[in-house]
């Protein structure tokens, strides 16, 4: 069933074109990287602010509200370009254990990112950031670095991409 979806995706003519025309394939990678930088940079700055080592003279809620639209924009660019590249060789990615690991780490990172976004205004009300907030922000930061590492491990360990 899942492998049939994979076959269907990678035989779709739009997907084939996007992945096989040189400048389009390069364009997908550019969008994937650029979106990732904006996504991870935005969430990392909020995490670092919550941890207490960035922008301490600034209000954490305002910084988060300023950056989170770019986090979502980066996530959208990163996800859409990533999906098209995945679809291009979906049947190879679907059974790959390293790719599964990447997706789990990315999912955990997104969940923590959304949780931090949701909690920052409440954490910000206390005079100092609660220790639980700092721990959650540290986990979020580590998960995002882990997501980048897992992304690099897919071609390194599985030879895909």
């Amino acid at each position, binding site marked *: 069933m899942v492998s049939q979806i994979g076959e269907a995706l990678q035989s779709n003519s739009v997907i084939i074109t996007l992945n096989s025309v040189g400048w389009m394939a390069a364009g997908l990678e*550019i969008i994937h990287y*650029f979106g990732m930088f904006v996504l991870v*940079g935005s969430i*990392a*700055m909020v995490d670092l602010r919550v941890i207490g080592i960035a922008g301490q003279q*600034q209000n954490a809620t305002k910084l988060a509200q300023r950056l989170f639209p770019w986090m979502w924009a980066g996530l959208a660019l990163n996800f859409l370009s990533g999906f098209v590249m995945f679809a291009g060789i979906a049947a190879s990615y679907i059974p790959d254990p390293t790719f599964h690991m990447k997706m789990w780490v990315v999912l955990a990172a997104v969940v923590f990112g959304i949780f931090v976004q949701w909690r920052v205004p409440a954490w910000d009300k206390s005079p100092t950031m609660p220790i639980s907030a700092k721990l959650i922000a540290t986990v979020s930061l580590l998960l995002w670095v882990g997501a980048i*590492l897992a992304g690099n491990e897919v071609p390194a360990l599985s030879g895909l991409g």
Partner: protein
Amino acid sequence: MTDSSVVTFGNWLQHQSFALAVATSDWAYPFVQATHFTGLSLWVGTTVATDLSLMGMGNQYQSPLQLFNALFVWNWIGFCIAVLGGFLLFSAAAATYVINPAFLTKLGFLIPVALILHIVIQTKMREWGQQPTMPRVARIAGSVELLFWILVVTAAVSIPYFG
């Protein structure tokens, strides 16, 4: 330097023990890549946020100057991490990189121009921030810098296409 002396330098560099370690180790290369990309996330992420605020985009919870002040230190920490990771990646295959036109365009033209613009914007930021609305020149500078970092990523992604 002539072409051949650049290649000689590249060959020398990639035979240094640290460069061989990156190039030949099963686990080191993805870690070094992750270092480069983590640094770039901080550098490009904070730079793009500042440029977009100069362009008047996004919400106004913070002024561009406040946002810039909050991001400034980690902007440059990100730059240092990216350069460290980038240098190690370069070292691992230096002789191939020094003759790659996409790499040469990236390092010899796009990054220097983007960096100069970045530093000019940072030195002007305080002055622009005093004014009630961002002056036109700030909007233009922000858009041009944003464009240049997109071009840097474009050149970087193009490197394997020329390799």
